[in-house]
């Protein structure tokens, strides 16, 4: 037989089905949601960014002129800098503690099928669902009943409670993707459970933990409701300080500080996305 290629007539292109009403309405809903997100989340951010570059004394949009004078003014804003430093310290401690507490909890929750552990999962996640304001108020009363006064460690503790769920969720997600046979393979090759955890489990869930740590850091850094109750004058944090500035004298420096936070957050997000694939960890 000679080598012969059969030339088949190209199959007719499948006709694109007319979009059903369901598909159409789904697209509409998504479109509207995306538009709302753009208008109410991105637009205000742009407004504050643009306003912060104003050359005038007043906090007004659209800004008049362009200058970096308010950013320069931040360099002399001692109180604001102290608040920012407090926020950073609180957020860093919170992140460290959230990772140290959230990771083992996530491992226990991912491994166990016991209803008690399920209940713990719901309990640990509840700070995400409960109004943080109520939690902050309750925490303040509780602290007073114990005869304590709000200070930095207690503020960190409050933040840890509301930020741990982020680490918990991303770590559990990473653990459920972890192939159990990898752990069996490690054990059968002679590794102890601890070695297996260190050499196999931890490297494979590190990105999940990292994503959770990033979210916990951001959540702590701009937390208002818990800080409102648990921070005192000495531990005033940045979001509260900014709020008071706006309330009292519409200080343009708050816009500059906000602009700085937005830019820093964007930078961090890009870094997190590049190194850890942040959005992939949150699915």
């Amino acid at each position: 037989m000679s080598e012969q290629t059969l030339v088949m007539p190209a199959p007719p292109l499948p006709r694109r089905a007319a979009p059903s009403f369901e598909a159409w309405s789904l697209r509409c809903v998504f479109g509207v949601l995306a538009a709302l997100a753009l208008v109410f989340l991105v637009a205000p951010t742009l407004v504050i960014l643009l306003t912060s570059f104003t050359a005038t004394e007043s906090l007004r949009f659209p800004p008049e002129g362009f200058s970096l004078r308010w950013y320069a003014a931040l360099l002399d804003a001692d109180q604001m800098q102290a608040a920012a430093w407090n926020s950073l310290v609180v957020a860093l401690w919170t992140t460290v503690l959230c990772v140290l507490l959230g990771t083992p909890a996530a491992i226990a929750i991912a491994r166990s099928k016991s209803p008690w552990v399920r209940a713990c999962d719901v309990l640990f996640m509840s700070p995400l669902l409960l109004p943080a304001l109520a939690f902050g108020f309750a925490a303040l009363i509780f602290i007073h009943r114990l005869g304590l006064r709000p200070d930095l460690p207690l503020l960190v503790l409050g933040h840890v409670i509301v930020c741990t769920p982020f680490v918990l969720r991303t770590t559990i997600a990473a653990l459920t993707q972890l192939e159990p046979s990898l752990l069996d393979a490690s054990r059968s090759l002679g590794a102890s459970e601890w070695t297996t955890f260190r050499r196999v489990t931890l490297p494979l869930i590190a990105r999940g933990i990292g994503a959770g740590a990033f979210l916990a850091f951001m959540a702590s850094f701009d937390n208002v409701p818990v800080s409102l109750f648990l921070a005192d004058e000495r531990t005033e944090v940045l979001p509260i300080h900014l709020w008071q500035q706006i309330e009292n004298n519409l200080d343009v420096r708050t816009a500059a500080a906000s602009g700085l936070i937005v830019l820093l957050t964007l930078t961090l997000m890009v870094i997190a996305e590049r190194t850890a694939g942040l959005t992939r960890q949150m699915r």
Partner: protein
Amino acid sequence: MSGQRGHELQLEAITQRFHDFVAVRDINLRIGAGELVALLGPSGCGKSTLLRIISGFMRQTEGRVLFDGEPVDHLSPSRRGVGIVFQNYALFPHLSIRQNIAYGLEVQGVAKAKRDARVDEMLALVHMSEFAGRFPRQLSGGQQQRVALARCLAVDPKILLLDEPFGALDKNLRLDMQIEVKRLQREYGITTVLVTHDQEEALSMADRVAVMSRGRVEQIASPTDIYDRPATLFVNQFVGSTNVLDGTVSTADADGSPVVALAGGRRIRVASDAPLTAGSAVRVSIRPEHLHLHAEAPGADALPGAVQTALPLGALVVYDLALEGGAALKVSVPRQRGEALLPAGAQVWAAPQPSAGYRAFPA
């Protein structure tokens, strides 16, 4: 390393219960040094449970596991020296091929120089030396399996467990890998347990096959014995294909071999391992390839039927016959080049080949 000589694996009265479900029931198995035994059975037959018990990931409810006569039940999986090749290979995705193979040696504290030499040896053994720097996701299924095997053999395990190792490979590659694994197993003389639901895999690879069903070993024998002399109807049906006909034991004929009256009224002589009592119901089995077709009645034990369909399979033709009384019978016959198929409706006689015969199992 202890190397070249295999270890004996013995399972003694192993029973595994999960609440009131018995997954494995009173298994006694002795696997000789260097032997390859296949645990063959459908899913849920208990073969995977047995594998987890041997490797130490599960503690059996009753019974003992012994290596070379020594109980190993108190040893954790990491101390037991059982190497496992998993169905999905379970290569560490964050480690390179070299690091994967070195992993076991590293965690067992083998010095770097010795470790490197061993890894090189293993890479050469499975023909993967040029892939040492790659990561598992960059390899094909067959290559990943080679690495999994090398990683396993690097630590010189006493027993090798293969858990459905060829299931994820396509058909051609599967045969190559089966030959490759068998070569390595022979070369190393390592005692191996192959867990599979694929009868071809079990028959082609194993020295002995243990057919399992519902937590029990139905039969353990050489592949040819399993095929030729199945101990139970389950084994007969699970390994290869067979015809099953219902009948009743009638009195033995003149030379003493039992005779069964089939549903259609025909009487045939059968062989049976179990004693048959007259009047009891039996199921009679014969494989399609153990039957011949004849145009005229060839004598005793022949069954008349009408051709329903012919399935030409190249070298073979499978005829589906309708017997008297409506039972179906498949007959597989070799086909000569140019030979015409029997038409539907043709009247033929099916009779067992002289070397084979009907086998009866209690119903």
